[in-house]
């Protein structure tokens, strides 16, 4: 019996306020840069001002003589510190080309922001001041900025590779050979679209910060880092630095947002560790915002060619996709895998035959490396299919909601084995779409639109939608193996009932805003029948939580939360043996509810968990052979991805004279299965939607033709403010996942996955009567105005 069927305490599903909040609201919480480390040296890094250049010479003499400076190192001088290059954990093809990438460049720089010289000084200001005294002579080479031009190999970035192409990854599924091409030849309707997923800066509000603290004897080292992945970082840092893994401890203190940008093994983490060991002193580094824009990974960066074939009713008959994915200058931790995470989603939520042809080229440019950014591949894929569906509806002159209804995978088809062989666990797309349509007043808006969008109208009304799947909950380890990913996808949890019946839940997830402490305590409370306030949740320190695979890919609840439930089950199983021993009955005769074991049919013969916890501790009278203590560790490897889904709709007006967009309503109907804490679910949707909406309307990492980033500060890169964005109407349907005992799915990326195409579809919907059929992102007023003008000229 799953918990969804048998809610004993019904903690799950209630809007619990977050236990994380008081420390964060009062300034008590410590972020990495808040740690007080007496005697620490400060690291600053001189970064390349050129996108592509040979290092001819470096003169550090003046910097070394600068007040407070302890040491200055070039890349060549630190080369002996590295046991290997910085890691890329996802070699997506056997022949993928991966240039060696070290924390400092030794002979050549490949993007603006590439690290060149490390300065250690007694204070942050002294180390920064010394950067100005370093003289580097460069031989400047031609920048490679455009991902499609890069493919011509006219200027090769990594000479030893002989090409700018890292890999080609194919996913071609055909019922019979040639059936995709055949479907396009026979199609009643075809669309062929090109979309650009602009580069985005993740812009977590906390810039990255690192502190490495060596132990004076024995060689142990503790790394504090503003990271999403203390566990993965521990393994990778040990390997890269050649330190035995058991001597490395990684702690992620309070972390101020990540969105994927802190899902990486960064040069600064490795530099701080190496320099701390060399100098036998703590070494710390904190990123400035302008440094963050260049030295922290970027998101997106894809050119997409999408073709849909459909029969005369609009039913999809084939999907063909070609992606040019911008890797940037090097492959970071999962850079090459990001477009592959989207590869399975270009048919969206639609029932298509075995006629799918996907291919992606991963291509180097002389720009900051890209990597996972909220959604990682899935917002890009969802955008492409959902905008292409609207293009198909326009061509067919039918309503885009009607076209989707004709193609949805039907509720009765779940669990649904997709063309790709993946199984979609549960879903009801029609219900989500109809709920969204009701909340957005879809029919009413269409009526209003017909009246409002007449020739010459200054303000035109539009409504756009997206129906999405969020393939998440990374991930079944065997599936990851088939995708050549370098790790598993399990998650670990330990549940420990202390002698006084207080509980420690130890999780391998590493929250940075998601509220795991609150939600995991709710799960444990529900399972154990122990009040939430008696449960502590420990995380993000590899000395406390040695096993884990951290937080990304909307995996924490669907994998880590389920692991907590599984560990509770193991503790309950052990407690049951002690209860049976005390009550002198068979363990099978006991039932457990509300934190009490009782004999079935004789409720007065009962023993509470508190008595069992103390008995397990004293061990005076345990069943023969049973270990003392009540503790269980459980590692959960999910049998499937989780497949949250939903429909978003946006109603907006476009001012045709200024290009300005006013959002009148944004509706997000999301289904993430059973909700542990609806308060947190809604918060995740709000934030995700605004990040997706920001891609649609505001944000872009702009480069000039020499590879200089023009948007390096928050004054130039438009992270929206409260005044730029609307309130959001959230609603949910609840379709439990059948693949885990909690019935849960992920929710962290859903908003971002649904939002960008929803907004863009609404803008095009408003303007299609003027002949506008495409809308590049970000749809700034200038871009919208230009699209209106060029459509008018084309008429």
């Amino acid at each position, binding site marked *: 019996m799953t918990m969804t069927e048998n809610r004993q305490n019904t903690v799950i599903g209630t809007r619990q*306020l*977050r236990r*994380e*909040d*008081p*420390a*964060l*609201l*009062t*300034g*008590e*919480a*410590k*972020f990495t*840069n*808040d740690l*007080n480390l007496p005697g620490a040296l400060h690291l600053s890094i001189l970064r390349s001002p050129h996108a592509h250049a040979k290092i001819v010479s470096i003169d550090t003499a003046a910097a070394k003589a600068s007040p407070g400076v302890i040491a200055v190192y070039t890349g060549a001088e630190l080369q002996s510190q590295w046991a290997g290059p910085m890691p890329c954990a996802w070699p997506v093809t056997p022949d993928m080309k991966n240039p060696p990438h070290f924390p400092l460049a030794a002979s050549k720089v490949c993007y603006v922001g590439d690290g060149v010289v490390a300065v250690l000084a007694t204070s942050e200001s002294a180390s920064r001041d010394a950067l100005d005294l370093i003289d580097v002579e460069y031989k400047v080479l031609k920048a490679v900025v455009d991902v499609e031009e890069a493919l011509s190999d006219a200027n090769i970035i990594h000479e030893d590779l002989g090409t700018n192409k890292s890999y080609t990854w194919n996913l071609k599924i055909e019922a019979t050979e040639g059936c995709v091409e055949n479907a396009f030849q026979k199609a009643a309707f075809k669309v062929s679209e090109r979309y650009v997923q602009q580069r985005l800066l993740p*812009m*977590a*509000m*906390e*810039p990255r910060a690192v502190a490495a603290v060596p132990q004076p004897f024995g060689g142990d080292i503790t790394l504090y880092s503003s990271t999403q992945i203390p566990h993965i970082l521990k393994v990778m840092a040990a390997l890269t630095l050649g330190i035995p893994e058991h001597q490395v401890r990684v702690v992620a203190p*309070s*972390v*101020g*947002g990540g*969105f994927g940008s802190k899902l990486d093994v960064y040069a600064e983490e490795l530099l701080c560790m190496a320099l701390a060991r060399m100098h036998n002193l703590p070494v710390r580094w904190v990123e*400035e*915002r*302008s440094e963050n824009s260049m030295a922290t990974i970027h998101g997106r960066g894809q050119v997409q060619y999408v073709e849909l074939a459909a029969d005369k009713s609009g039913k999809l008959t084939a999907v063909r996709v070609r992606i040019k994915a911008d890797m940037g200058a090097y492959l970071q931790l999962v850079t090459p895998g990001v477009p592959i995470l989207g590869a399975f989603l270009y048919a969206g939520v639609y029932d298509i035959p075995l006629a799918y042809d996907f291919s992606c080229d991963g291509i180097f440019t002389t720009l900051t490396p890209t990597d996972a950014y909220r959604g990682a591949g899935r917002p890009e894929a969802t955008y492409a299919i959902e905008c292409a569906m609207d293009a198909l509806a326009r061509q067919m002159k039918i309503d885009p909601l009607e076209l989707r209804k004709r193609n949805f995978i039907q509720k009765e088809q779940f669990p649904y084995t997709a063309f790709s062989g993946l199984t979609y666990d549960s879903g009801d797309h029609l219900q989500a779409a109809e709920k969204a349509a009701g909340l957005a007043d879809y029919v009413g808006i269409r009526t209003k639109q017909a009246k409002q969008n007449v020739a010459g109208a200054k303000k035109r009304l539009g409504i756009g939608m997206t129906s999405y799947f969020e393939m998440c909950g990374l991930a079944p380890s065997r599936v990851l193996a088939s995708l050549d990913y370098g790790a598993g996808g399990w998650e670990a949890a330990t549940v420990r009932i202390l002698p006084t019946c207080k509980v420690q839940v130890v999780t391998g997830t590493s929250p*940075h*805003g*998601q*509220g795991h402490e609150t939600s995991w305590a709710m799960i444990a409370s529900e399972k154990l029948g122990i009040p939430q306030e008696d449960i502590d949740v420990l995380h993000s320190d590899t000395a406390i939580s040695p096993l884990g695979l951290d937080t990304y890919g909307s995996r924490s609840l669907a994998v880590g939360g389920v692991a907590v439930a599984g560990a509770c089950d193991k503790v309950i199983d052990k407690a049951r043996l002690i209860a049976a021993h005390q009550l002198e009955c068979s363990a099978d005769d006991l039932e457990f509810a509300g934190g009490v074991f009782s004999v079935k049919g004789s409720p007065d013969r009962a023993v509470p968990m508190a008595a069992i916890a103390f008995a397990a501790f004293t061990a005076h009278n345990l069943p023969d052979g049973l270990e003392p203590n009540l503790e269980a560790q459980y590692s959960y490897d999910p049998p499937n991805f989780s497949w949250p889904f939903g429909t978003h709709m946006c109603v907006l007006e476009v001012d045709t004279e200024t290009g300005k967009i006013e959002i009148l309503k944004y509706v997000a109907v999301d289904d993430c299965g059973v909700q542990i804490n609806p*308060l*947190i679910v*809604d*918060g995740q949707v*709000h*934030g*995700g*939607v*605004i*990040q997706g909406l920001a891609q649609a309307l505001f944000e872009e990492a702009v480069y000039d033709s020499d590879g200089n980033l023009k948007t390096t*500060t*928050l*004054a130039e890169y438009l*992270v929206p*403010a*409260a*005044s*730029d*964005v609307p*309130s*959001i109407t959230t609603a949910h349907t609840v379709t439990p996942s059948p693949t885990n005992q909690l019935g849960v799915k992920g929710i962290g990326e859903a*908003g971002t996955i649904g939002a960008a195409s929803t907004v863009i579809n609404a803008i095009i919907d408003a303007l299609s009567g003027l002949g506008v059929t495409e809308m590049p992102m970000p749809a700034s007023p200038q871009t919208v105005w230009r699209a209106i003008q060029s459509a008018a000229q084309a008429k």
Partner: protein
Amino acid sequence: MKVSITVNGTRQEKDVEPRTLLVHFLRDRLQLTGTNIGCDTSSCGACTIHLDGEAVKSCTMLAAQADGGKVTTIEGLSKDGVMHPMQQAFMENHGLQCGYCTPGMVMASIGLLKENPNPTEEEVRLGLEGNLCRCTGYHNIVKSVLAAAKK
């Protein structure tokens, strides 16, 4: 140079380098690390504090400019272990996720209500445009401020 600033009710006299920003004075000299730094262009508002009762970004001014003034930081808001109504409103309305922008957002929100005790949603959004949040999409921040106004 010497500065004398009353911080959270305690007078602090310190020697500082003239170029010391107020935010660095608070964080590095007084260990009041609740005031965060999120940018280098005075764009994000994470470092918002109150100087003589007014919300200001503590990265935009030198410690020397606050000489003789009264500063309240996020650490100085709660009284006798009870959070300020604005802090409570943020908690009750899930107005924070990672919490990095939160101290500045709370200080700015208190400043906003001081100037406009009964704002509309639009006025709250406009009033907070100098403070950036990447987690919440602002929805619950706006809700928190409106709830605090009703208290």
